[in-house]
């Protein structure tokens, strides 16, 4: 068994990419992702990772280099955040269309303006529709494990799609946690070398990225959608294999104290650990509150979610991003839509909190739950509201 070491989560992310024997890293520095790429360049400089480190001049080029190197058959890793992810936006759509299994860590951070380097989910929530598999980590161990898992899933011949592993900027990326670090040889048992199905090779010329006329464009889009939806079984299977190898079990949806719960709190990312404390406190007060979080966000684990929600009367969804002019936070609108038409449809209320690094306290979670219960009893409430706003 590998021993646990105290390590900054960013460095653990780099060590995971290193243990996976990444061939190419192309990245541009952006807070709070910097420690990840700094450590990767150190690993390359010290000869611990045999990879090409391409210090690009922008995130747009970072993603473009990644597409090129992946198309050339190399295992490719990058990391970014916020504005950098937004700058990649155009190329993010193209990576799955070209079937390039890139693995990217996103240290989630608010989007400008106003400019903010602190944590929320507005960067990733603006990239939901780009055709990437997307997972969210709760703690440092999960960051390490999800990166190893990501390479295995992305490179599966049935998938060949890129994956984003999300971790909260600063609140997770910059903390030191005890993590079981798998060595390269331990990872090798689980993660076989990448065997590309189609590669840019003068011996066997292929044309990649041709023009899609109206006669073929729809079919190309449907293929990507079918691949992404179909990837869920590979994602789940790869987690089962992971558990066999290393003893840690992961599922698309994580729940906490759901048995007998009437109200459920839904969160994403590392804030769920604070939410657990809130849930414990509410049970102590006699409130029947469970917690649910998505580890797998794309493809959306619809069946798992509906199953988990059976018997739940009230659902309080916390978003860490705002959807200007919309019907509520992105997670809220999606889960409400997922529950619409189910047999015992719960009442769903949305809360937006923790924007741009604003702390989310145990009290705030309790406030959300209490409000949701009150609105449910009354039979009406605001579709969504913002929590913790200073009014003066």
């Amino acid at each position, binding site marked *: 068994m590998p021993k646990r070491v105290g390590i900054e989560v960013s460095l653990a992310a780099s060590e995971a990419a290193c243990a996976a024997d990444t061939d190419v890293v192309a990245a541009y520095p952006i807070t709070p992702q910097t420690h990840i790429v700094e450590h990767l360049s150190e690993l390359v400089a010290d000869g611990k990772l045999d990879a090409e480190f391409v210090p690009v001049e922008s995130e747009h080029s970072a993603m473009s280099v990644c597409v090129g190197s992946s198309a050339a058959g190399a295992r490719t890793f990058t990391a970014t955040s916020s504005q950098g992810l937004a700058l990649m936006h155009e190329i993010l759509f193209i990576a799955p269309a070209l079937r390039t299994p890139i693995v990217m860590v996103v240290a989630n951070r608010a989007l400008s303006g106003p400019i903010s380097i602190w944590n929320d989910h507005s960067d990733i929530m603006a990239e939901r529709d780009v055709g990437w598999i997307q997972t969210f980590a709760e703690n440092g161990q999960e960051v390490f494990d999800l990166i190893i898992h990501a390479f295995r899933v992305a490179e599966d011949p049935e998938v060949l799609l890129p994956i984003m592993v999300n971790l909260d900027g600063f609140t997770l990326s910059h903390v030191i946690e005890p993590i079981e670090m798998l060595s390269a040889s331990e990872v090798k048992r689980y993660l076989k*070398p990448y065997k590309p199905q189609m590669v840019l090779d003068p011996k066997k*010329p292929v044309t990649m990225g041709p023009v899609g006329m109206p006669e073929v464009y729809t079919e190309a889009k449907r293929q990507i959608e079918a691949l992404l939806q179909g990837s869920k079984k590979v994602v789940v299977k790869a987690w089962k294999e992971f558990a066999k190898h290393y003893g840690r079990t992961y599922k698309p949806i994580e729940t906490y104290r759901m048995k007998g719960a009437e109200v459920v709190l839904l969160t994403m990312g590392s804030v769920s650990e604070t939410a657990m404390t809130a849930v414990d406190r509410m049970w102590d007060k006699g409130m029947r509150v469970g917690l649910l979080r998505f580890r797998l966000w794309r493809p959306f684990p619809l069946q798992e979610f509906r199953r988990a929600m059976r018997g739940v009367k009230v659902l309080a969804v916390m978003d860490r991003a705002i959807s200007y002019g919309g019907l509520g936070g992105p997670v809220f609108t999606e889960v409400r839509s997922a529950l619409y038409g189910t047999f015992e449809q719960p009442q769903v209320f949305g809360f937006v909190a923790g924007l741009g690094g604003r702390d989310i306290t145990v009290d705030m979670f309790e406030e959300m739950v209490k409000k949701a219960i009150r609105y449910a009893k009354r039979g009406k409430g605001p579709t969504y509201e913002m929590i913790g706003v200073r009014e003066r």
Partner: protein
Amino acid sequence: MDAALKNFKKFTPKSLPKVENLAQGHRACQGCGEVLALRMALKAMGKNMIVASATGCMEIITSPYPQTAWEVPWIHVAFENAAAVASGIEAGRKALMRKGRIPKQRTTIVAMAGDGGTADIGLQALSGALERGHDFVYICLDNEAYMNTGVQRSSSTPYGAMTTTSPPGKLSMGQNTWKKNMPAIAAAHAIPYLATASPAYYTDLMNKAKKAALIKGPAYLHVYSPCPTGWRLAPELAVDISRLAVQTNVFPLYEVVDGQYILTKKIKKRKPVEDYLKLQGRFRHLDKKMIQEIQERIDRDYEALVQKAALSEVKGESAETEE
């Protein structure tokens, strides 16, 4: 000079390679000088290549799925990132070769884009790739405007030219800025090889393409690419106009090898620029005063180039002279 250029064997009209990397049957306009130049450049570099293309005319005409005109591996990702994609291919192959996962063999990595994809939207990605020193050849096919979208001006559009976004009017004489000197920008990156080339001088173009491929590190080719459609030029005149551009010093042919400027086609007595302008509808609205202004600028720019070449004092390279 790069060891690869010692004992360099030049192409002659009789020794042109039979290899075709870009097949016939593509969908270029009649008389397209760009695809002509591209085909010759690719012929010169041989089959062992991978091409990363920017969005643009050449991408559209060669790759309407399920057809392709490409006989070599080719990838198109987006408009502004051909140099970055090529960087990735080069880096990926380098790592895989070092790790013994693909055979060790140097392959020519080509990035290609138009003038918009190079001098405007792709300039940053290109600068990054040149500065990082990737082993690749960048080909800018300069047809002096955004032709694929319907002839809009770029920073490479010449002064006075009519485009759909630099239209002559009561208050306008067409493009009101001078053409960006893209080769000078590329040269400022101190890359080992850079050249300008024209499809009218096809052996010269092919020799330069071959040199660019042979040299290790980044090489930049700036290729004059006449667009009859966008320039309001008779399709049969694409090669003639390419020659005239050189003979009038509108588009001088030169190389920059390790920082040394070398004129590869010296013009003893240049033709007046009016001969060049009058064949093209895009310049039809120009008055005498503007033509004079253009002439003066061309003479000044050419003189500056001659000075640079004189400073270089290159031995062993004799430019062909044309009357």
